């Protein structure tokens, strides 16, 4: 009898549920495509993201080569009098004649790397803090008070304070965003771990003599994975937004590095002549954010319906 019951792992089951949701599948596909293009950036463009070509400045997006004009709007000609044409720039060029498509995909490297690194760091520290707080009441008293103070600080302010004091660099932005995520991870995991800790099987393992670390990491942690996955996904969207915002304000990625927020900031001065300089990086941010938000929503519905909307 029993072999007729199909056994499915939790992971497999959840993935199936996720893929049954059309919107989530589309979001996942878009993100995978984005990731492939961003990782393999040199294969998807012929240009260098930092290479300037002043004759080709501020070209609008186009499907073909465009005639070049000088600052007075006169066509640029070669020695034989023929009008010079630009190279092919699908999404146009910026004020230094740099190819925007190239800058977008190289910029994505920064957003996604910083995002992943910040979440990973914040998650590791937060999860540890949460697990140990749940297991040792003495740790709890100290760690959770610290988390309370961190919570009482609006996140973006904390990030700015860190960046202001340590200096504007990508490393510091990563650090700032990860510190900002620590308290929520800690609270989330602590709550989950506290309820797991009450289970009989934990008492049973304890009575056969398992060590504390073994109980914490092998028996409690795996039961806290669902909220961690959900929150990390949602947090990714916030992280990408924060990097872009800090860079826009000039305290994140520094020019000439291409980053989506920096690109929007650079486009501000040309918003009448070349609105594509603002629109294109904006769309890149929005699409990425949308995908992470959709995934986060759907994952929450599947894995952890009780998790509140409000972080």
């Amino acid at each position: 009898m029993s072999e007729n019951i199909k056994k499915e792992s939790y992971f497999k089951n959840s993935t199936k549920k996720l893929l049954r949701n059309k919107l989530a599948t589309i979001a996942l596909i878009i993100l995978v495509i984005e990731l492939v293009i961003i990782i393999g950036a040199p294969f998807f463009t012929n240009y260098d993201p930092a290479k300037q070509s002043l004759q080709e400045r501020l070209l609008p997006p186009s499907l073909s080569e465009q005639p070049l004009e000088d600052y007075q709007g006169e066509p640029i000609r070669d020695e034989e009098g023929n009008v010079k044409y630009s190279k092919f720039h699908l999404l146009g060029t910026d004020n230094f004649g740099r190819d925007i498509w190239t800058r977008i995909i190289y910029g994505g490297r920064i957003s996604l790397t910083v995002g992943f690194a910040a979440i990973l760091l914040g998650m590791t520290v937060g999860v540890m803090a949460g697990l140990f707080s749940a297991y040792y009441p003495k740790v709890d008293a100290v760690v959770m008070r610290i988390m309370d103070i961190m919570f009482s600080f609006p996140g973006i302010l904390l990030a700015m304070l860190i960046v202001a004091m340590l200096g504007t660099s990508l490393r510091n932005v990563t650090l700032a965003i990860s510190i900002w995520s620590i308290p929520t991870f800690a609270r989330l995991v602590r709550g989950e771990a506290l309820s797991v800790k009450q289970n009989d099987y934990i008492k049973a393992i304890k009575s056969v003599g398992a060590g504390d670390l073994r109980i914490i990491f092998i028996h409690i942690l795996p039961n806290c994975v669902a909220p961690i996955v959900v929150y990390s996904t949602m947090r990714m969207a916030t992280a990408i937004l924060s990097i872009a915002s800090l860079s826009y304000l000039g305290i994140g990625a520094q020019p000439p590095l291409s980053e989506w927020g920096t690109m929007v900031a650079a486009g501000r001065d040309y918003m009448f002549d070349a609105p594509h300089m603002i629109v294109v990086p904006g769309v890149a941010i929005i699409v990425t954010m949308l995908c992470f938000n959709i995934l986060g929503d759907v994952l929450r519905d599947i894995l952890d319906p009780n998790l509140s909307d409000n972080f």
Partner: protein
Amino acid sequence: MQKYIAKRLFQMVIMVIGITFIVFGSLYLAPGDPAEILAGESATISDIENIREYLGLNEPFFVQYGKYLEGLLHGDLGTSLQSRQPILDEIKIRFPNTVNLTIGSMLIAVIIGVPLGIISAIKRNSILDYMATTTALFGVSIPNFWLGIMLILIFSVKLGWFPTGGMTHWFYTPTGIKQIILPSIALGGRIAAIFMRLSRSAMLEVMQSDYIRTARAKGVKERVVIWVHAFKNALTPLITVFGTTFGALLGGAMISEQVFAINGLGRYMINAIYVRDYPAVQSSVLVFAVAFILITLLVDIIYVLIDPRISYES
């Protein structure tokens, strides 16, 4: 009740002290010697030593911290390195603009977000609901600096309906309304989306509860069921987020202020970061954080006042 408020006030004092500690201690995180930074590049070693002595940097950390706290209690936020003016005076000029912008954004968020959420909960799975939820999804995904620039491009430059930036009047004056609408949408749009999603899910939950079924069963009109019976109870979870979103608004204000060239505290802070005016950065963060704590406290107190189910003893 009084006991609860007293307890919360006490907690608040502890929090504020904690924050002053973080803010003061953060200067020690800064690479390099503060005195060296203050003295500038052409300073001699004795200049730096004089500055260090003048600022009391040779004293132990906690003595310095104590002096800092004493200064704060006397309303002394220090002197700006850039303008050499007392920071308190500089903040006094700018903070009202930030408050103005924050209130405007909150109004936009509530006026757009809450009704939209409730309507889409009532008309669940209708086209209206899909449109509203999709808009909200975009709302939480569009960066506010980008939205701000787009609004300027469309409504100020192309259509000429609103000024491109600046803030000179309060939001309730005719000029003020024109000045504040675009920055508030840029800043409050995201919050509106969050409110919409929250009020929708809160309303859906309430609508499924037993007492709503009872109300319907005894023949209460649907309109009364929704607005009298359900709405009030759906409001409570919203009020808790009110406090935290105010914090997000205060923090996000600097972006809107930067995009719309509003002379507010956020912009002051950003400029202070650019020129490494550390005391100004510290004080701006402090003012923001204390404002945030005060609002959270206020919201918590309102929360227990309007929702008698909450036991404030625990």
